[in-house]
C-alpha cells in the first residue's frame, strides 16, 4: 500500500487545464459560499444573544418590581356591575417592545 502511495505521489500524470480551471471555479464558489454562511451565522448569533439578554433582563426587571413604576387601576365588569381595583404597573422593554405586568397596589 505504501509503495503504491509513493508511486502515486511520484506519478507525473495530472488533470487537464480545463479540469483544473473548473475545479478552481468550484472551489472559489465554495469559499464564497462558506464566507457568506459564516458571516450570516455570526450575525444570527449576535442577534440571538442580544434578544436573549433583553429577554432575561426584562424578565428580571419585572420580577424585581421596581419601585418607580406607575399606579393605576383595573376594572372588573360583570353585566352592569363593576369593581375598580388599584394596581401597580410594572413596565420593561424586551427587544424594543413594552411588556407590562400588574399587581394589587401594596398598602
Amino acid at each position, binding site marked *: 500500500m505504501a509503495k503504491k502511495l509513493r508511486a502515486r505521489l511520484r506519478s507525473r500524470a495530472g*488533470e487537464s487545464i480545463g479540469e483544473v480551471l473548473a475545479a478552481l471555479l468550484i472551489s472559489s464558489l465554495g469559499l464564497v459560499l462558506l464566507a457568506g454562511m459564516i458571516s450570516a451565522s455570526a450575525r444570527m448569533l449576535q442577534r440571538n444573544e442580544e434578544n436573549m439578554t433583553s429577554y432575561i433582563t426584562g424578565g428580571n426587571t419585572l420580577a424585581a418590581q421596581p419601585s418607580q413604576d406607575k399606579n393605576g387601576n383595573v376594572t372588573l365588569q*360583570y353585566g352592569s356591575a363593576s369593581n375598580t381595583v388599584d394596581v401597580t404597573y410594572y413596565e420593561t422593554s424586551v427587544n424594543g417592545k413594552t411588556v*407590562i405586568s400588574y399587581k394589587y397596589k401594596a398598602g
Partner: protein
Amino acid sequence: MVRKKLKSNSGMSLLMALLLFLVCAVVGAVVLTAATAAAGRAGELAEMDRRYYSVSSAAELLARELSGKSVTVVRTKTDTVTETTTSTLDSSGNLTGSPTVNTESTTGYTYAVTVKDGAGSAIPADTAVRELLADVAIKYVFGNIDASAYESDTGWGRTPGDFQEVTLPGVTLSASNGDVLPVTLAAKVGRDGSLSFTVACTEDGDTFTMTLTMKPSVSDDSGNPPVNGPNTETTTETENTGSGTERTETKVTTTTTTKTTAISWTVGTVSTGG
C-alpha cells in the same frame, strides 16, 4: 474504492469534488435555515412575554378578588293557614246558631342571597364581585331553571349541583394602562360549584390562554332543612249588625322552613391552555 482511486489516472477527482461541494452546500443551507427559524422564534419572545404577563396578571387579580369570599343562599318556604270563625251573638251576648268556620291555606316561597368578604363583612350590591359570586351560587342552587321559577315550588325542590355546566356571560377585565394587552374572560360554573375562568390574550394571531379554577367549599342543609314555627297569631273583631253582634275570630298559623346553602371559594388550579 481508495485502491481504485490510487490506480486511477482519469479526471474522476473533479466529479468527486463537485459532489462533495454539493453535499456540503446542501447541509450548510439546511443548518442555516434551521438556525434562522430558531432565531425568528427567539425574536418572538417579547410578544409571548406581553401576552403571558397580561394573562397572568389578570388571572392573579381575579384569584385575589374572588378568593375567600362566601355566599349564602337561603330558600324560605312559608306555609300560612288562616282559620276564620264567624259567630253571631244576640243583644244579651249569647251565641245564636252555630259558628261558621272557613279555612284557607297558602304557601309562599322566597330566597335571599348574602355575599361576604373574608372578614365577614357584607359586600355591597352592584359590585361585580358581589353580583358575579351571587349568580354563581344561584346557578349552583337552582341550576338551569328559569329565574321566574326560583321563588316557586320548583325552586324550593331543586337539589344544588343538579345541572350541567353553566356559562356566565358578560365578565370583562380592562386595565387603565393602554399598553396592557386586552384579555377576554369566559366564566363557567361547574356542577360541584367550582368557578373557572379562561383568560385569553391574542396578539398578531397568536393566543395565550390560562385557566383559573376556584375550588368550592359547600355546606348545604337541603336534605334536612330547619323548620321555624308554627307561629300562631289570633285576632278577634266584633261588629254590630242590625239583629245583634257578629264576632269574627281570625287565627293565622305560620310555619317557616328554610334551606341554607353556603359556598366559598379558594384558588384551586391555574393551568395554561384553554
